[in-house]
């Protein structure tokens, strides 16, 4: 384009020169050969010569400019190389597009934590190193396989590997998915929503919300989960209903020592547990949940007895404040023929408030009260903590637990804890 432009400029200039020359020539009248005329002619010619020189100089300059503007000659090899490069880039672009639009997606998520704890009167130890990768394999927006593997170091240095959950989730429609496998108990909120260490604002679970305590941890079976249609409203509601093998009861002498809810794949009592939770969001950033479950449970080799769960939970965020609380209760009924014939109940509740402070600090306080059938396990706990958030999912925590329980038991000992947790 600029070459063309310069060419036409050049043509114009030469036209002007020839025109200028001819007009000058015509204007002069070389008719008389007088001296005066001769002199005039002479000076005119020298003037013209000067003009031509100027014009030539101008032309020369134009030429230089032209030469500069002309793209340097491109060799065939270079063109060939360029073509190759373009092909390569096109291929990369295409593969990126293909990758973006694949039917299947593989994704690795999860969390890890390292912790320290010190019980009053002891020297304390670096007590936790845990890695919990979560594998996601997704097919379109129809299927999700989710599995969390929990790998942790035990007190003696050995490694414990557990399958926290594995489910294949089939999306049936916009409001329902079928979930099959071993899942985190859908009852209540702590176990299914809060227990991962990067989410939990304190290094420990509330009293009664640990393994084999008041809150059911996991189960193996099937679930239906999803949203409850709410029309055009800003309110939301969700549900989860399930049928699963249910818990097992551990006998110790004439007492039920604990209720194990780890999601076994056998059903000792031969009868299933049915239950579910409904969550309701009346306004943004608030959820209220109600959970119930019912079925049978048994001590190995004994007859089955009734098993019931009842729970209520809430969560609310307001500005920098995060509030949540939960009550959960599991009980098993009377069985006269049992070695532990009475009815047994495990219940607990907690309330927690967390406040985001300036500079990524966060203060937390939680009160929990666990009531088990065994006085030695009962615990009332006030935990206060200070967190620093390196990122929303990378959190360092320091906490102090004031524990109240049966004198002399570990449930009654106060504790300092510290933890670094990373969700990825």
């Amino acid at each position: 384009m600029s070459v063309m432009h310069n060419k036409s400029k050049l043509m114009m200039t030469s036209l002007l020169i020839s025109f200028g020359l001819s007009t000058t020539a015509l204007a002069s009248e070389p008719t008389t050969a007088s001296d005066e005329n001769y002199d005039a002619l002479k000076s005119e010619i020298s003037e013209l010569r000067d003009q031509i020189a100027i014009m030539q100089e101008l032309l020369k300059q134009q030429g230089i400019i032209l030469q500069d503007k002309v793209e340097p000659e491109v060799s065939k090899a270079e063109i060939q190389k360029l073509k190759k490069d373009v092909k390569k880039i096109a291929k990369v672009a295409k593969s990126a597009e293909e990758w973006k639009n694949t039917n299947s997606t593989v994704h690795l998520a999860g969390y890890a934590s390292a912790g320290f704890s010190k019980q009053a009167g002891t020297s304390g130890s670096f007590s936790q190193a845990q890695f919990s990768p979560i594998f996601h394999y997704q097919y379109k927006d129809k299927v999700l396989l989710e599995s969390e593997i929990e790998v942790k170091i035990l007190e003696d240095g050995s490694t414990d590997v557990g399958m926290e959950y594995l489910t294949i989730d089939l999306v049936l429609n916009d409001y329902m998915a079928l979930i099959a496998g071993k899942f985190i108990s859908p009852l209540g909120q702590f176990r299914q929503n809060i227990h991962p260490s990067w989410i939990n604002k304190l290094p420990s679970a509330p009293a009664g919300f640990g393994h084999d305590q008041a809150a059911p941890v996991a189960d193996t079976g099937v679930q239906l989960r999803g949203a409850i249609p709410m029309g055009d409203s800003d309110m939301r509601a969700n549900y989860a209903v399930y049928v699963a093998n249910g818990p097992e009861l551990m006998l110790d002498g004439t007492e039920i020592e604990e209720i194990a809810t780890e999601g076994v794949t056998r059903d000792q009592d031969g009868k299933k547990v049915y239950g579910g939770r409904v969550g309701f969001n009346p306004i943004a950033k608030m959820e209220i949940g109600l959970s119930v479950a019912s079925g049978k449970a048994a001590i190995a080799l004994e007859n089955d007895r009734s098993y019931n769960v009842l729970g209520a939970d809430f969560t609310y965020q307001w500005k920098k404040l995060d509030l949540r609380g939960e009550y959960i209760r599991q009980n098993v009924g009377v069985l006269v023929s049992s070695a532990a014939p009475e009815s047994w109940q495990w219940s607990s509740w907690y309330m927690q408030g967390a406040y985001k402070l300036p500079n990524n600090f966060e203060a937390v306080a939680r009160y929990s009260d666990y009531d088990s059938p065994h006085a030695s396990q009962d615990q009332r706990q006030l935990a206060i903590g200070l967190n620093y958030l390196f990122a929303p999912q990378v959190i360092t925590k320091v906490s102090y637990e004031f524990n109240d329980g049966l004198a002399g038991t570990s449930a009654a000992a106060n504790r300092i804890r510290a933890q670094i947790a990373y969700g990825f």
Partner: protein
Amino acid sequence: MRIYKTTYFVMVLTALAIIATSPGIATAKDAKPDAKNTTEVVKDTKGNFARGAKLWANRCSSCHNMRDPKDLTDSEWEATIMHMRIRAGLSGQDTRDILVFLQKTN
């Protein structure tokens, strides 16, 4: 007795599944009855950015700290939002809306 109860529960689950999958009930189309083009009109298969932004702000901080859209790539968000859909009981439409928002702002 035990068989009855199981059968009963399975029947209830099946009925729920059938009801929820039937096109007459599945979407919010009843809210906007458009005689010609019902499902397409209401079921926005691509997702809506503005709705997604609002839902993200309202729904994504109730269990854990809000995650930055920039934390993940488009495809990672796909799997993560599917994960959250199941965990939090989000509707398909809310999921699509939030996904569009996250993929456009990451």
